[in-house]
């Protein structure tokens, strides 16, 4: 038996892809589930280039034909970790690869909430959304640990921001255009049909586009790739949701050459981990494939992951201490005795892809996809007028605001004795709104149009980000010779985002008057200036009406890419490149009073021509020792959301905006022997000329201020290592270490502008060189022990340790003041190191031809509730009384579980 489970998907890209058409042999084997011993039907056997060679039969057996020589075979099966075998193929012979056992991937629990979804809101109500990346199951011990153990603490591989990875679904790139990041929630709940994927965590080619520095994920949903049968899953958890039910049905490729796969799922709970976080998600998936003949297939996939969920927000340590809970959520309260959340994130974005698969010859593989993605996304928030900030953790309501001990104690007492103090008082909003008589003269700018009614003082608004996106791509892979492969393609994408705010709920009032409150205070005698919509001044808006902000975000792009690869027995090399044109612009749909000439209509069109080159390869000393290296240089346009100073209000382009350059290199040593498998990698990445724009309420200027940092350089370097040691055939020890330095590498330029006029307040630099990047532990270690019984049960324990977690800093206090000095400069804040212990266990049964699988992931079994995973300094700050605006921080969940029962036949 020649079975080697190789530890690294990296290899996938470098190992021999040569096809000796004239000199071929066969490989046969049997694929079984390691836990149950059950044969796995329709497991895909693919070559290293991703070409599907064959599928396993009902009894798990397969026979494939491939070129002679030392070959790698990749076995993919949904929910299971990829297995890689190495065989010596001899011309005309059939080699028996024996029984290939596949491990259920820890990742089949991907959507279990281990992946922490945490969202922050800065003091002024602008949300910073940070969603953990799309790490997926992987045979690499380092990456799978990073996903399933480190994932809960917001770990980012190599510290890269999420927009440096790319996720495609049947060739449709699903990264959010405006923020650049792929959002997992867009296909959440469809876990059972998203498993067929190729993943890389670095720039190694996986055969689609120019894989960015943070890696790429290619999800494939061809209906014929799913094995026939039904799978039903029920999960119980206390994480993001309590219940999950999923059913997937697949016909497999039927005799009439059609294949259909459908999946529906529902995830719901009255509350998630924190209070006030309901969850209501329904996901639908349908994939239909018609095999026209042996050379052509067509596949149509439609999916939609709809959801509405209450979001939890971070607060300051002072508030957590007051509430006696590091998981206090300031976003909810009771309405008429029932819980209501003020921050509801929702999505309804159907995606359709139509793919054509064409194999004109054995050597040529052409795949063409057209896709359309559209729909709406929303995020609600409170808005208010003429009242004290209604959020319970507003700084003026906290003990630190008061200077006298007795006053502080009074506040502390009220938090202890009256839970309502810590919540949003919905009933009061209705009470106030229902009796606030107000008369609007010349409503909507219509002379003589007088409106008298209850003007809402509190409303729920929905900040919408709707999209309409079309993509077309065609990809060609050609085996020019037995050792030489060329892969390349084109991609065209047309995107229109529609960003606007609607009144979601008037909370008992009759209307909301659409004026800019900050401008109204600054320019009380200039009514034009404080109109949000100058063409409809004093507009009284009702539920569903657009107000405050309404604009389009346009982006159009075209990409040409290609990779050439040469494989030899001892080594392989590749060379890849791409070129892309991007055009983006804003189109305002409202004429804003403060910027009457610069808010309505189209902005300048920002045009970019960007390019990139990468090269790499591997060298095999023996079958057990190899070295892999990659190098990359690329440029890319700034993100849409950083290209405009204040896209909500005007067309002004960020000053000194330029494209960014990324330089990166890594080198790995990989060991694979029967008893020990491991990898150690060193990497270095330099980001040049990044841009970041943030808006927030500035206390001194008493208005919204835009901070545009340009020319940002960042440096990410470090090492990652993982090893897995088989102590016995049933007992495995694994160890993983990630030691990184993720730095701000220079003092970027900053341009500060106010939102109430267009003058530039200052052009300075921010003194932050060698500050650390935030939001990920820069040191993460894990040690695990796993037992896999031959009696179809398994158990494991993992301990992990985290350090060098830094909070995001406030550039305001690191920028010169009028005196030309940095009087408020201070060191960056850092979270304490911490550790977690996780347990997992499971068992499977086979009853007739039903397979039952019951598993439990018990995370943080020591209930460590003080592991801070990140946070940010508030932009608002008071140098005289820093205690007023403490950083907002997040903690890792305490003990939590995810129990999963699946039935398959």
């Amino acid at each position, binding site marked *: 038996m020649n079975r080697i489970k190789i530890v690294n998907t990296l290899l996938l890209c470098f190992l021999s892809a040569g096809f000796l058409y004239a000199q071929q042999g066969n490989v046969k084997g049997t694929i079984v589930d390691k836990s149950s011993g059950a044969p796995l039907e329709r497991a895909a056997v693919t070559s290293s280039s991703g070409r599907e060679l064959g599928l396993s039969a009902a009894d798990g057996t397969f026979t494939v034909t491939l070129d002679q020589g030392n070959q790698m075979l990749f076995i993919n099966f949904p929910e299971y970790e990829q297995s890689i075998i190495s065989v010596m193929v001899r011309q005309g012979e059939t080699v028996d690869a024996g029984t290939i056992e596949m491990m259920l991937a820890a990742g089949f629990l991907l959507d279990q909430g281990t992946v922490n979804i945490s969202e922050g809101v800065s003091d002024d109500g602008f949300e910073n959304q940070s969603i953990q990346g799309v790490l997926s199951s992987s045979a690499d011990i380092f990456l799978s640990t990073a996903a399933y153990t480190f994932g809960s603490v917001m770990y980012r591989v190599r510290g890269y921001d999420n927009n440096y990875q790319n996720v495609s679904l049947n060739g449709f790139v699903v990264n959010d255009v405006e923020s650049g990041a792929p959002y997992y929630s867009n296909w959440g709940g469809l876990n059972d049909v998203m498993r067929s994927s190729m993943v890389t965590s670095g720039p190694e080619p996986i055969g689609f586009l120019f894989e960015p520095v943070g890696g790429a994920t290619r999800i494939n949903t061809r209906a014929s790739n799913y094995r026939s049968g039904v799978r039903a899953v029920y999960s119980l958890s206390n994480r993001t949701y309590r219940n999950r039910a999923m*059913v997937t049905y697949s016909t497999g490729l039927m005799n009439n050459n059609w294949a259909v796969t459908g999946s529906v799922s529902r995830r719901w709970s009255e509350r998630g981990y924190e209070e006030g976080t309901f969850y209501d998600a329904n996901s639908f998936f349908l994939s239909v494939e018609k095999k026209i003949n042996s050379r052509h297939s067509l596949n149509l996939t439609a999916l939609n992951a709809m959801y509405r969920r209450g979001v939890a927000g971070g607060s300051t340590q002072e508030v957590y201490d007051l509430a006696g809970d590091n998981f206090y959520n300031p976003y909810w309260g009771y309405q008429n005795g029932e819980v209501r959340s003020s921050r509801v994130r929702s999505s309804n974005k159907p995606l359709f892809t139509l793919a054509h698969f064409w194999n004109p010859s054995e050597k040529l593989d052409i795949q063409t996809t057209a896709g359309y993605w559209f729909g709406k996304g929303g995020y609600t928030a409170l808005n208010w007028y003429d009242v004290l900030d209604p959020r319970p953790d507003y700084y003026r309501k906290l003990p630190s605001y008061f200077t006298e001990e*007795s006053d502080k104690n009074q506040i502390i007492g009220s938090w202890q004795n009256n839970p309502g103090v810590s919540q949003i008082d919905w009933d009061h909003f209705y009470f106030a709104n229902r009796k606030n008589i107000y008369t609007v003269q010349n409503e909507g700018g219509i002379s003589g149009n007088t409106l008298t009614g209850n003007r809402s003082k509190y409303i729920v608004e929905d900040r919408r980000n709707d999209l309409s996106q079309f993509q077309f791509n065609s990809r060609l892979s050609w085996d020019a010779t037995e050792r030489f492969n060329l892969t390349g393609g084109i991609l065209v994408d047309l995107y229109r985002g529609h960003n606007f705010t609607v009144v979601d709920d008037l909370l008992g009032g009759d209307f909301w008057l659409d004026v800019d409150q900050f401008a109204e205070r600054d320019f009380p005698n200039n009514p034009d200036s404080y109109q949000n919509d100058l063409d409809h001044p004093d507009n009284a808006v009702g539920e569903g009406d657009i107000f405050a902000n309404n604009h389009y975000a346009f982006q159009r792009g075209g990409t040409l890419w290609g990779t050439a690869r040469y494989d030899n027995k001892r080594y392989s090399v590749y060379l890849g490149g791409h070129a892309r044109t991007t055009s983006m612009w804003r189109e305002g749909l409202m004429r804003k009073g403060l910027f009457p000439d610069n808010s309505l209509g189209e902005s300048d069109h920002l045009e970019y021509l960007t390019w990139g080159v990468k090269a790499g390869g591997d060298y095999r000393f023996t079958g057990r020792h190899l070295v892999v290296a990659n190098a990359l240089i690329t440029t890319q346009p700034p993100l849409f959301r950083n290209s405009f100073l204040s896209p909500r209000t005007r067309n002004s382009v960020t000053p000194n905006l330029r494209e960014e350059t990324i330089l990166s290199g890594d080198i790995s040593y990989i060991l694979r022997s029967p008893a020990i498998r491991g990898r150690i990698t060193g990497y270095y990445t330099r980001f040049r000329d990044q841009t970041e724009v943030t808006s927030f309420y500035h206390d001194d200027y008493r208005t919204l201020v835009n901070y545009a940092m340009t020319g940002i350089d960042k440096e990410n370097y470090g090492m990652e290592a993982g090893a897995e040691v088989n102590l016995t055939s049933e007992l495995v020890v694994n160890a993983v270490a990630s030691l990184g330095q993720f730095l701000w590498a220079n003092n970027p330029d900053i341009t500060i502008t106010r939102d109430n006029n267009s003058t530039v307040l200052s052009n300075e630099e921010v003194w932050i060189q060698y500050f650390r990047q935030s939001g990920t532990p820069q040191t993460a270690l894990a040690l695990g022990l796993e037992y896999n019984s031959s009696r179809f049960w398994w158990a494991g324990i993992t301990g992990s340790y985290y350090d060098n977690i830094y909070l995001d800093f406030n550039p305001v206090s690191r920028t010169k003041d009028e005196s030309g000095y940095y009087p408020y400069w201070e060191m960056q804040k850092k979270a304490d190191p911490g550790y977690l212990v996780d347990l997992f266990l499971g068992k499977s049964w086979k009853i007739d031809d039903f397979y039952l699988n019951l598993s439990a992931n018990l995370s943080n079994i020591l209930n460590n509730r003080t592991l801070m995973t990140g946070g940010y300094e508030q932009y608002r700050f008071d140098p005289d009384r820093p205690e007023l605006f403490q950083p907002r921080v997040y903690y890792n969940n305490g003990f939590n579980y995810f129990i999963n029962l699946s039935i398959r036949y």
Partner: protein
Amino acid sequence: MKTIHYTPMIRKIFLASVMALPLLFSGCADNNETPPPDVPFVSGQVVTVDQVKALYSGELAKPWQQRVPVEITGDWTLRGVITASDKKDGNLYKEAFLQDGTTGLRMLFDATSGLYIGDSVLVNVKGLWLGDYGNFVQMGSEPYTDDSGNLRVSGFNMDKQVKKLSSGHVTLPEKATIQQVKSAAWLGRLVKLEEVQFDDDQLGRSWADAMADPPAAANRDLVDCSGKSLIVRTSGYASFAGEILPVGKGSIVGIVTVFNSDYQLVVRDYSEVQMTGNRCGYVPQPQGPPVESLSQDFESFKDNATIYINGWQNLASAGGRLWLAKLFSGNAYAQATGYNSQLSSMVTWLVTNPVTLSSQKVLSFETAKAYWAHTGDHQPLELLFSTDFNGNNLTTATWTPLTGGRLATKADPDHTFIPSGDILLPVQAGKSGTVAFRYSGSNSESTTFRIDNIVIKPAR
């Protein structure tokens, strides 16, 4: 392993039921957005503002150090009209004044009041507190200790306590004199003072210091023609804080307040300041009859004397400083300067006797400057000409710049008189005209300017 046998029928039933699973579980997991039932605003016994204020009279009688806020415990409701609020002109902040038939009361809120002048309201006062700030009674919420260690009432939540009945009720201010309003009975009330003006030494100043960081409130002295004075207090955040005080006499509307023993007036609406009339003691100045020519070398004046020439005018339109005579090395001349004036705006005019314009007239004079402090392209001296100035209409007369003459500039040496050269006046048959030397400066733009040897004569 136990083996159970299923028939295909059972299998189908099983399949159907698992497919239906998600629907079965469509349990309640939505956000609760059902509106709560209407909660009526329940008012108590309607009382007067006087009755409420009386609860604090005992405290007010004590020395201020011994006073403590008083909680209103009766189930009482005030009914009145809003006479001033922070929603107009920014002179108030998180506060509003309520007035009924008896008197007015300052209400402190925890946020912008949301109340507008003319709103008719009910205010449930049970649970609110009365306190004072410098003897001025105010109503708010629970007391707290301020930075100086004094107990103050905090702002209350308008929505919990107040119901608007309707809007647009005009409360006419009570007409009163400065002498009358300086009494406790008038505190909190909306008054209109007529025939008043800002005191001479206030002219040229702004209502408050809007340019300070942070903007600072200021007191300005308002007087009537008998010399009785009252402080007008204005917030630095008021929309008119940076405006120059009106120079005229007229009427002003505001709320009467007090700070310790100083009575004050707080303007609620800038448009109600109508002070454009002639100042107290104003005596119309005789303007001389038109002459054919004139010549003035100021040699008849003593040092520091105010310039007064028969038929000429020496007038201040801002700041109250006039042209003065100065002597240096035996030479006398007219001088204007903003130096050490403490004025944010000083504008002073020296206007000649009218001259006939039927024939061509030529103007000439000499100017000197010293200690140039004007910034940018601001000029201290302007030369103006009018044919409709009658001695009493300085601000409404038509003044046109006279060009062609040379005035001392920043580049010229200090104290050196520069001849203007000949300046031709317009020829207008049957008409006469006057020439004005207008100095504009301030305490900071304080350039000193001098004029001498003014001559107007027929062209040869």
